[in-house]
């Protein structure tokens, strides 16, 4: 089997099948609403990839989703299911805001931006570290801990913002004084009005770094070994617990980085509830992206397109349709991945059987 074919069958086929399912489901919803599917779909494409503003919005949304997607993917590579993206993302945004508020406004951007981004990663990373350490130390199941921790972190942030930091009558902080990232429209005027900003560049670097880490470094080799077979990893001289908490630390930091996009790139302040489900959607992104950093990036673009597309088609069908579709895509991919693997292996079995 050629390498390319293997990549296609193992990686691309299942998401394609799922996309097809989602398209059909979408058609049915649109027809049920009494509209023509063709018109709705073309409006969706037109409103996203068809003009600079829409595309800018897609890029903006994809930036956050790439981060939360990587956070899930790197956890899964180490054999851990990180459902804590939502809390890690929020904490990251909060960390960036605190640093931006604390730094004097005269801080040069060259210093302020790395400090704020670093603060986001540290804040998100610490939230990720908790389930990692509890897993390594006590064997506490990370799915349960991350879910529960989301609520704890969100409640805590809600309290600290509403009780201490909020501008009166709002649930957001004051604008940060340092570390703001310029929007892309500052360089490319066509993006005018869209929230796309230079966080995108930072996140692209993070995608490359994650790939490099996973597949080119010894730590990445060891992390993936732990994910595949912890008992074997232990035999291979790898400290499994350490790999776990490190993976969760990195996952949290990556999700936290996503918070920069909203806080430093878009609004310039921290607002309660800004994560708005992007952490959970990261699970879908990682799943469709097959836990590969490049796949995650592409999947993030796909889900960002759906989400932005909802606004574009609102004139014809309720924008909530895309939320239904998101659910269907995740279900369909989750079902298609094991099914496709089974069918491919069966076909391979038959092929070698004939060869004998």
């Amino acid at each position: 089997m050629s390498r390319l074919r293997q990549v296609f069958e193992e990686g691309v086929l299942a998401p394609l099948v799922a996309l097809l399912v989602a398209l059909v489901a979408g058609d049915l919803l649109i027809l049920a609403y009494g509209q023509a599917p063709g018109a709705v779909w073309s409006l969706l494409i037109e409103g996203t990839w068809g003009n600079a503003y829409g595309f800018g919005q897609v890029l903006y949304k994809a930036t956050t989703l790439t981060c939360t997607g990587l956070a899930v993917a790197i956890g899964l590579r180490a054999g851990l299911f990180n459902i804590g993206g939502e809390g890690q993302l929020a904490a990251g945004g909060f960390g960036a805001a605190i640093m931006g508020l604390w730094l004097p406004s005269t801080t040069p951007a060259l210093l302020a931006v790395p400090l704020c981004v670093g603060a986001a990663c540290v804040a998100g990373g610490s939230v990720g570290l908790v389930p990692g350490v509890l897993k390594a130390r006590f064997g506490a199941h990370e799915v349960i801990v991350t879910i529960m921790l989301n609520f704890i972190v969100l409640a805590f942030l809600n309290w600290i913002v509403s009780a201490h930091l909020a501008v009166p009558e709002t649930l957001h902080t004051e604008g940060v004084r340092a570390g703001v990232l310029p929007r892309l429209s500052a360089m490319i005027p066509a993006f005018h009005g869209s929230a796309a900003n230079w966080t995108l560049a930072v996140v692209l670097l993070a995608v490359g770094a994650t790939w490099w880490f996973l597949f080119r470094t010894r730590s990445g080799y060891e992390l993936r070994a732990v994910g595949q077979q912890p008992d074997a990893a232990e035999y291979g001289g790898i400290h499994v617990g350490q790999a776990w908490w490190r993976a969760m630390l990195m996952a949290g930091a990556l999700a936290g980085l996503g918070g920069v996009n909203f806080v430093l790139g878009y609004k310039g302040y921290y607002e309660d509830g800004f994560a708005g489900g992007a952490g959970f959607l990261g699970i879908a992104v990682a799943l469709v992206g097959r836990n590969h950093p490049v796949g995650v990036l592409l999947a993030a673009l796909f889900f960002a397109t759906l989400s932005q597309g909802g606004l574009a088609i609102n004139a014809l069908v309720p924008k909530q349709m895309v939320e239904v579709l998101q659910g269907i895509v995740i279900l369909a991919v989750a079902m298609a991945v094991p099914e496709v693997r089974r069918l491919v292996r069966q076909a391979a079995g038959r092929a070698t059987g004939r060869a004998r």
Partner: protein
Amino acid sequence: MILLFLAQTLRIAIPFLFAAAGGALSERAGIVALTLEGFMLGGAFGAVLGSYYGGSAWIGIAAGVSAGMALGAIHAVACIRFRADQVVTGVAINLFAVGVTRFFLDVAFQSSSNSPRVAGFGGEGLSALTALAANPLVWMGVAVMPVLAFVVARTTFGLRVRAVGEHPQAAASVGVPVTRVRYVAVVWSGILASLGGVYLALDQHQFTDNMTAGRGFIALAAVIFGRWHPVRAGIACLLFAAAETLQIQLQAAQVIPSQFVEMIPYLLTIIAVAGVVGRSRPPAALNQADA
């Protein structure tokens, strides 16, 4: 005063009790119950739709339960027939339920936030206690955990659920229809959890967007904190509801910020799974597709 406190606790606990019953059943059969939130939301929306167009709370219950059943069936097919990862499908079912209820809220009531008012059980102007007593769902909610405990411990179905959730290969080897037992358990978990949503919607006399607001996860926390045992899970539900009641009562006094009371169920659950006070151990075959 104490009576009122208890009544309020019970009122808050009912949705938890239904959802946790569904969660316990599903997880004992080896299927992860991240879906409770979605099942509840579906049930709540179905209840309002049914009551509004059917004109009766009973039709509301029927419609809500059907919604829960349908969501349960989708989840079951995805993770039993297609062996999809149950955590992923759980997250998907929850997103799907939010999307579908919003979509049809728009279709049915042309609103993005809430439905019109529907009748629930009991007339207007009843005292809190009589209103509770007049609501058949309250009685069902109180009974659900003891009944489930009996089903799990003392019926053939319950024995098979326990076997299937712990060692499906062993169950299959003696001819227990593993797949069927799991389908039944998951669909029933949809029915039970949706009743929690039905109660919620009828109690508030309307559907509001995402009105379950994490209650499904509190119910899941109760299941885990109760170590997958129905009665213990039920006690956990009451405990969590009491904390919430306390928070509401203390809110005026501003003793502790409400957010810290909100954290209690989640913190207790994390402490429980970390095994600081007696490790809680999930059914062995949880999230294993293979029978």
